[in-house]
Structures are given as C-alpha cells and as structure tokens.
C-alpha cells in the first residue's frame, strides 16, 4: 500500500482510507476472530477501522502504520471485553477459572470435534487475550501487561494456564 494513502487518509480522504482498509483488513479481521471469536469479528473489524479514521491524526509515523493499527485494534477489542464485563479485576480471577472450564468442556463436548479456534473460545477473555497476543501475534509479556493493566508475571501465569487448557482440549481430538 502506498504510504501516501495513509497521509491522504489523515487529511480526510475517504477513498484513500478505503485503500488503507483493503490493505489491512485481513490481518485485523483475523486478530479479531482469534481474540473475540468469529461471531464478533465482523463488527469489531469495522469498529477498529472507524476508530482508526478518528485517530489517524495521532499517527506520527514513529512505528509502521501496520504496527500502529494492530495495537489500536488490540485496544479496541480489549475495550469490548471490558465493556461486556471482563474488567481488570475479573482478569485475575480468570486465571483460576481456566482449568475448571477445561474439565467441564471435556465432559460436555466429549464427542465434538474441536479445532484451535473452538478450543480458544472455551477460554476466558483474559487467558484468550494473553494466548493470542503472545503465541500468535508475538507480543512480549511486558507489552501485554501494559495493554491489560496487569503485571508481566500475571501475563505469564495466564499464558501457562491457557496453554495447559488448550492442550487438554486438543489432545482429546488427537
């Protein structure tokens, strides 16, 4: 995508912004799908680009536009989680709930096929977010802690538990 499209979009050129959208929609959609599930992915993707349009003036070019947009998308998705009740306080409680959910799911869905997407959807938002950001998107624990407002240690703990849970869910399909 030409860099000029971002500049033009910053100046209010909607046609240029559509080109920016076309260039980045796949990555943002898949981030939303993995973090929030397929049902919410469409709407979240649209939310991200609307927010990007509103915030374009704040993009100063210190990072690549793709990185800026990705971080903005993560924030939009996490805001949605919080809006539906996954507040910071509950994020810590999620950590203890992960394995309990896994055991319950194993019994309930014993005969159902389960891919990674379905397995991830069994995780609480906090654990899912840490797993996707760390193991899929490549964020470090310090970065995740900064985004979620928790310590890096909490992020590590969440990842460890999320991985354990996912392994349990996936093994029974193997």
């Amino acid at each position: 995508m030409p860099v000029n499209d971002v500049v033009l979009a910053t100046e209010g050129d909607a046609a240029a912004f559509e080109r920016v959208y076309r260039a980045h929609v796949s990555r943002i959609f898949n981030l939303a799908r993995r973090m929030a599930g397929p049902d919410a992915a469409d709407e979240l993707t649209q939310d991200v680009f609307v927010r990007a349009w509103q915030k374009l003036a704040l993009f100063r070019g210190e990072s690549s536009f793709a990185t800026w947009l990705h971080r903005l998308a993560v924030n939009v998705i996490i805001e949605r989680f919080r809006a539906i009740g996954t507040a910071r306080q509950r994020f810590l409680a999620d950590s203890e709930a992960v394995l309990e959910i896994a055991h319950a799911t194993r019994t309930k869905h014993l005969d159902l096929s389960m891919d990674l997407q379905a397995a991830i959807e069994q995780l609480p938002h906090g654990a899912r977010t840490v797993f996707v950001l760390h193991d899929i998107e490549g964020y470090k624990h310090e970065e995740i802690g900064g985004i979620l407002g928790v310590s890096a240690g909490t992020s590590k703990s969440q990842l460890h538990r999320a991985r354990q849970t996912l392994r349990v869910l996936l093994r029974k399909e193997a």
Partner: protein
Amino acid sequence: MTEQRQFGEPDHEPLGTDDILSRAIGQWRDEAPAADLWPGVAARLEVRTAPHRTLVSFTLPQLAMAASLLIAVASGMTWLAARGPAAPVDTQPTVVAQSESTGKVEGGIVNANFADAQFNAAVTDLEQILRDERDRLDPRTVLVIERNLKAIDVAIHEARMALNDDPANAYLNSHLADARRRKLDLLRQATTLASAGGN
C-alpha cells in the same frame, strides 16, 4: 509490538515443534470476512467525521456578525484614508506587518512579525502613540478608531478561542493573522493621522 512470530517466544517457555498446541497454531489459517465490511465502515465514517466539520462552521448570526465587522473595519480604514494623506512622520516609527519573524530594523521601519510577543509589543507601542496623540484627532475620528479596534479585538479573541480547539485549522490561523494585520494597519494609519494633526 515486536515482530510477529509464528509461535513460541524468547520470554516464555517455547512451544516444542512436536507440541500439539504448536501444530494446531501452525494449521490455524487466516480467513477472509464472509462479506465486504467496508460499506459498514464507510457509513460510520460520515457520521463520525461530521462533528469535525462543524468545528469550523459558523452559524448565520456569526456570519452576519463577521460580515458586519468586516464592513466596519473596511469603512473605518477607508474613512481614515479619506481624511487625508498620511504625512511623513520623522519622529515616530512606522510599523509594517509581515508574516515572517524578522524583527529587524531597516531604514527606520520597525518590522513587526506575527509572533505573539512581537505583535503585542508593536500594538503596545502604537497604542501608546495613539493615546499621546489622540487630542490632536477629531473626537469622532477617535470614536471610529476605537470602535473598529474593538471589533478587530473581538475577531482576534474569537479566532484564538477557536484555535484552542482546532490549532491546526488553516482557515482559523489565516483568519487570526489577517485580523492582527488589520489591527496593526489600523493603528498605523491612526497614529500617522494623529501625528499629522488629524488632517
């Protein structure tokens, strides 16, 4: 954000390649949205961007007031000019408004730029001259000058207030610069007129 990694990471226990989780991640393919999401985005852009446009719009009364101010200032300056030619004044500096910040003195002409400090200093100097010389002007002339200066001050104040909310707005910046230039021009003409004895 760091560079995207396929899976595993340096700051946490890496996933082994034979780990069922790493295999699942490796097979987790990207998907495209089932439908084009752009129309939904575009529709919301219009709604969300509308308030930005209203920031620089003006109501009918505001436009009417702006037109009145413009007419008043133009009339005042025309009236001042019609009162008589500006006589050369040896003892008073002439302030020339410039858009560039030079601050130099060339041939007895004080170059006033539009940075706040220099602008304020030039205005202060001219206002002092005008106060000192006002008795030499017809009271009706003083009244017109003061009325027009007040109108310009209102325009400057309003432009500054609007710029507080929208500092990068080119129109508002231009409007402010024009208003300040008009104020300097009016003060310069008034002091020249007063120095010439009001004739």
